[in-house]
């Protein structure tokens, strides 16, 4: 499936080129016009009548950026987008366009004192080892500002589950492509935006240009269905269908649009769940805060272990999310 190529591709915020190329090639078969704007967003227009709809997914993923060289030839780095300090140690990464392999090092356990063993280390205590012997050698291979992604490869596992990196939001990109394959009456703009993970920067510009009536955001979202978490904290659960957001820190989602989506889900027997958390944010914030504003809603695929080196999602949820969005769009215009 296309999601495999999208998940394996590198594309941290500001460096979405590889992902953009895959998507551009794919969507041009299904839409009337493909534009890449100055920020690097892809705007795929499928012309129609009736209301103007943005269907949004973001191309960027969370990763790292190289910030300095150590004397021994290892690299200093920092997160680009929100990656918790607990995530980096003992992971393998790819650096820059040439995908140079690196290992994120950590002080050996026998040298850590009691306090160090218990606490979470900070980025300044980590380094990336690319197997070089000197600062000079490293400087020839890696430039400051080079981007870094995890080396996780996509695969299916378990019963109908998939694992891989960057499901937030390549899973949204893959669904958006599936949606654009269908035909609708309404005027649809598929936007594949850049720089969501650093504050929805790309989405502001594509929305400003389009001025939609409604913006539907497709996301890979937080999922907390682990055994030690009480029910009320389980924002979403895997296998229970697409999650419809009620509110987050960036938007109060249109109850009118959300209700219509839920109505379609019930009519078409598509399972759905509500995203029972008001934390986080997504491109919806930018869509309704640019130009004349818009009504916004979010439909997400629950992804376990999001914003880390590997996420887990359900193929059923993926398919149901595709179906729900397609059925909803068919009712417009």
């Amino acid at each position, binding site marked *: 499936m296309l999601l495999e190529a999208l998940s394996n591709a590198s594309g941290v915020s500001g460096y979405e080129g590889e992902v953009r190329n895959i998507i551009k090639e794919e969507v041009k078969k299904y839409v009337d016009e493909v534009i890449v704007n100055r920020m690097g967003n892809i705007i795929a227009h499928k012309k129609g009548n009736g209301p103007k709809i943005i269907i949004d997914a973001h191309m960027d993923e969370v990763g790292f950026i190289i910030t300095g060289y150590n004397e021994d030839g290892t690299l200093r780095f920092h997160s680009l987008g929100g990656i918790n300090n607990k995530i980096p140690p003992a992971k393998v990464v790819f650096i820059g366009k040439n995908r140079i392999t690196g290992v994120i090092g950590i002080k050996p356990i026998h040298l850590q004192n009691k306090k160090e063993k218990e606490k979470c280390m900070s980025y300044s205590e980590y380094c990336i080892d690319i197997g070089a012997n000197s600062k000079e050698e490293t400087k020839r291979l890696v430039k400051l500002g080079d981007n870094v992604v995890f080396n996780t490869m996509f695969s299916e596992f378990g019963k109908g589950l998939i694992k891989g990196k960057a499901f937030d939001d390549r899973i949204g990109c893959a669904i958006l492509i599936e949606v654009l394959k269908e035909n609708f009456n309404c005027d649809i703009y598929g936007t594949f935006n850049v720089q969501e993970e650093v504050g929805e920067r790309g989405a502001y510009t594509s929305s400003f240009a389009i001025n939609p009536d409604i913006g539907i955001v497709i996301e890979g979202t937080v999922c907390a269905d682990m055994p030690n978490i009480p029910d*009320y904290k389980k924002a979403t659960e895997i296998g229970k269908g697409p999650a419809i957001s*009620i509110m987050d820190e960036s938007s109060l989602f249109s109850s009118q649009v959300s209700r219509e989506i839920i109505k379609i889900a019930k009519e078409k027997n598509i399972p759905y769940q509500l995203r029972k*958390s008001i934390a986080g944010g997504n491109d919806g914030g930018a869509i*309704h*805060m640019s130009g*004349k504003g*818009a009504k916004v809603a979010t439909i997400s695929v629950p992804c376990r272990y999001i914003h880390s080196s590997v996420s887990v999602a359900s193929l059923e949820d993926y398919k149901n999310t595709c179906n729900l969005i397609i059925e909803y769009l068919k009712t417009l215009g």
Partner: protein
Amino acid sequence: MDKLLNNLVNAFGVSGSEGDVRNIIKEELKDIQCIVNEDKLGNLIVKLGEGQEKIMFCAHMDSIGFIVTFIEESGLIRVGKIGDFSSSDVINNLVRFKNGTLGKLTLNKEQLFIDIGVDRKDRVMQVVTEGDIASLVGSCHEIGEENIISPNLDNRIGCYILLRLAKGLKNIDKEVYFLFSTQHELGGRGARAAAHVISPEYCIVVDLEEAGDVFGGKNNIKLGKGPIIKVMDKTLIMHEDIKKMLEKSAEKSKLQVQYLVSNSKSDGGTIHKEGLGIKTGELSIPCRYKHCFSEIVNIKDIEDSIKLLKGLI
């Protein structure tokens, strides 16, 4: 008690669910000649008069509230906050859902709950579900020396002032816009979109500001001592021209004003950065105990604000 004001404060109007307030305002505008538009975010944009200059007055319709995130097997309803306010200021009071369901708001370890007196989840779900919105409830009274006590005075008072202002306008030689905005309590989200469309030269926001004349008060603002020229807050520095306009009008009508630098947020914060930029400032009305079910505002402050704003047109 003024009937219009009473209707406004009793209307359901939490951020994002401003429909009832909007309807009251629309109804009230029927008597005057104006153009009324509602935009995608639910803002009500009212235009009066013709001319070269464009001036906008803005008051937000929405109030703080609560959104249901989870319903316990026991029937207790977990809610999150809509807006930026202190939980301890609002608890142990009545709240009402949009469908009329009443409940008690309570707090346990930083988690807000609503108890609607139904002790099983499935039966609660027949009246309230996740994503539903609740508002503070209380009654509206006149108390003491020309004071009003009620929930949701923030910012139905602003809406009331704008409506009174609009009704009193005659023979105007400029385009005057009244913006009744949405989602202020979430960071001026509605006002921004409307400002983008209207693109006025001047904007005056009318909102409430905490009065510090109580025990533990944190500023010099006194109830009943006149409207506030809010020089600066977290999101906006009052434009010099607006400040001069307000001061001139106050002087002309011999009105007492107060000055304030505050830590609050204004709709002006998003408005003044839109398009080519908008000269923006806020005239605030002193309010004791802002963001709780018993806010107090003085009637003379309201009347003085109307006089002062009238002087600008």
